[in-house]
């Protein structure tokens, strides 16, 4: 109780003093007062966790929307224990869905005694902090081998996710398109090269794509034989994948999928992502992409036309200090468009675009940019996205 009150007090102080949204600081203090606070706060609640490199925030929001019950969730994207504590103090709702940083999944799964864990995908992201993505897969594998009551919802087309989840007692495998496999070239079991075909993958040692598939994603989503129709407001194939996995997680808890999909279809924006904002006469659609897999998927989702695109790249702590990953993104697909380069590392971006043969303009907030009738797509990585959220306003 003392710890819980401490969280609330610090959160209030943080808001009064206008230092941040006051979620994480309160959580940190609470955990310092009682390290077992997350366990205490989770007791008697039904907890779903969502982890993976890309799609955590959106999938979490989809589960929260589709559950059709009042939920407690960390919708601000604070996905480490301090953020989880803050979310559980802020809401007493018995239904809980939390996005969890990949490195913290083990600790949070056991602290919250989670019933369902959703594993979206694993790929390179902020290697200066997380270094090797395979280590994460190995840690997850140890976690699920030792957590027999957890029901896992896992991407069957991501070999690193399968490596982690195959030891779990109960897995609902999702057969969802996963174009980014550059981090799963060699088999996590035997290190020999993995083979990929259009619809499957396998290793010579016998490790292969699971066959007992629970969910498939085509024009519709089919979850254990039940067909539901997606009509998402948010763009991109990756959001259809997030929705399929969110629906599978809800199915594990016996939620009516027809109700769930209607509510998921109604979502227009998650944490400001995909929202249209105004800035100096421009109408901007703000899109977040923070690593090669996410950026590749986002470029793919841009309408195939020749409209200008704005890109914004930072390399602050939350982004990872190393923008080398720009060379893992196929920016060549932007040839024929003009790209405005923003952010602290706009020269790194401009150099990348130069070598990709893409017309580009190095810009900053003071630049005079011709405005257009159409909404301009702005793709930004983490802190650059936040900068654009703050800089722009509702239209």
């Amino acid at each position, binding site marked *: 109780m003392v710890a819980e009150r401490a969280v609330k007090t610090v959160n209030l102080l943080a808001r009064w003093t206008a230092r941040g949204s006051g979620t994480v600081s309160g959580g940190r203090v609470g955990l310092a007062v009682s390290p077992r606070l997350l366990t205490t706060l989770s007791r008697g609640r039904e907890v779903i966790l969502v982890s993976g490199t890309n799609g955590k925030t959106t999938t979490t929001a989809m589960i929260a929307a589709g559950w059709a019950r009042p939920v407690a969730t960390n919708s601000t994207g604070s996905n480490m224990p301090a953020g989880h504590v803050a979310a559980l103090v802020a809401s007493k709702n018995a239904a809980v869905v939390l996005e969890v940083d990949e490195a913290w999944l083990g600790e949070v799964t056991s602290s919250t005694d989670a019933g369902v864990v959703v594993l979206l995908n694993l790929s390179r992201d902020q290697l200066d902090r997380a270094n090797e993505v395979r280590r994460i897969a190995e840690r997850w594998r140890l976690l699920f081998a030792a957590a027999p009551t957890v029901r896992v919802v896992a991407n069957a087309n991501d070999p690193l996710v399968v490596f982690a989840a195959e030891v779990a007692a109960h897995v609902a495998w999702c057969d969802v398109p996963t174009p980014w496999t550059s981090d799963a070239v*060699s088999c996590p079991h035997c*290190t*020999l090269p993995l083979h990929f075909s259009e619809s499957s993958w396998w290793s010579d040692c016998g490790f292969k794509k699971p066959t007992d598939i629970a969910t498939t994603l085509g024009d519709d989503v089919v979850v254990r034989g039940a067909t539901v129709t997606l009509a998402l407001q948010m763009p991109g194939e990756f959001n259809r994948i997030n929705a399929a996995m969110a629906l599978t997680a809800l199915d594990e808890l016996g939620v009516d999928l027809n109700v769930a999909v209607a509510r998921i279809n109604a979502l227009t924006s998650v944490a400001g992502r995909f929202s249209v904002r105004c800035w100096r006469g421009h109408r901007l659609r703000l899109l977040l992409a923070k690593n090669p897999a996410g950026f590749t998927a986002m470029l793919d989702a841009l309408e195939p036309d020749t409209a200008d695109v704005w890109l914004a790249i930072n390399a602050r702590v939350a982004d990872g200090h190393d923008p080398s990953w*720009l*060379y*893992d993104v196929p920016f060549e697909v932007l040839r024929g468009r003009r790209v405005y380069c923003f952010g602290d590392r706009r020269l790194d971006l401009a150099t990348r675009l130069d070598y990709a043969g893409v017309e580009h303009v190095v810009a900053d907030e003071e630049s005079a940019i011709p405005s257009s009738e159409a909404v301009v797509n702005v793709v930004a990585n983490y802190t650059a996205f936040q900068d654009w959220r703050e800089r722009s306003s509702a239209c």
Partner: protein
Amino acid sequence: MLSVALVYPELLGTYGDGGNAVVLVERARRRGIDAEVLRVGIDDAMPNAAVYLLGGGEDGPQRLGADLLRASSFGARVGDGAFVVAVCAGLQLLGRTFAVEGDDEYEGLGLIDAQTRRGERRAVGELVVEVDGRTLVGFENHGGRTTLGDSVQPLGVVRRGVGNEGTVDGFRAPRIWASYAHGPLLAMNPWFADLVLEQVLGVSLEPLETSADLLYAERVRTLVG
């Protein structure tokens, strides 16, 4: 035709290392020299190329990369006069031994008298190296500490970061350059890209204006002042 072989990008391409191939080819083409990237997949035979690029990779892929390279004609081609630019894991596997999980002395290609052991902590951060009075900027992220044999010349002197072991970075030998500055090393350092190109092509090149000039100037200003 200048052919640039990007060796096992699926294994040795953790940090955007494929960018170096694009940079060499583009800088040649813009000077009217025909050039192509040859992507060497793990199932492909080693093609004949003027220059081979080896990038960074995680433990398992690095071990597999070393095994595949050892079994390929890579060593023979280097002996026959091909050039090599290697970064990070690529640097390590050119040496005699390197450390991977479960094995502190995994056999490298032995083209260079160098040995890599695991360091106490990973070296992660900006790397600045002085190479013959010029400044090379990049980013390093590796757990190795590399010791060079007495006859091996380092690439340069570390001004910021760790490099091989805190004082020098990488190595150079006839037709070989290696650095711990990973990823788009050649993109960030246009002068170094041209130095490699001039030697591979055996010609001297006219200066070329690219966006990379602005990037290089900004990185040097930020990191060196």
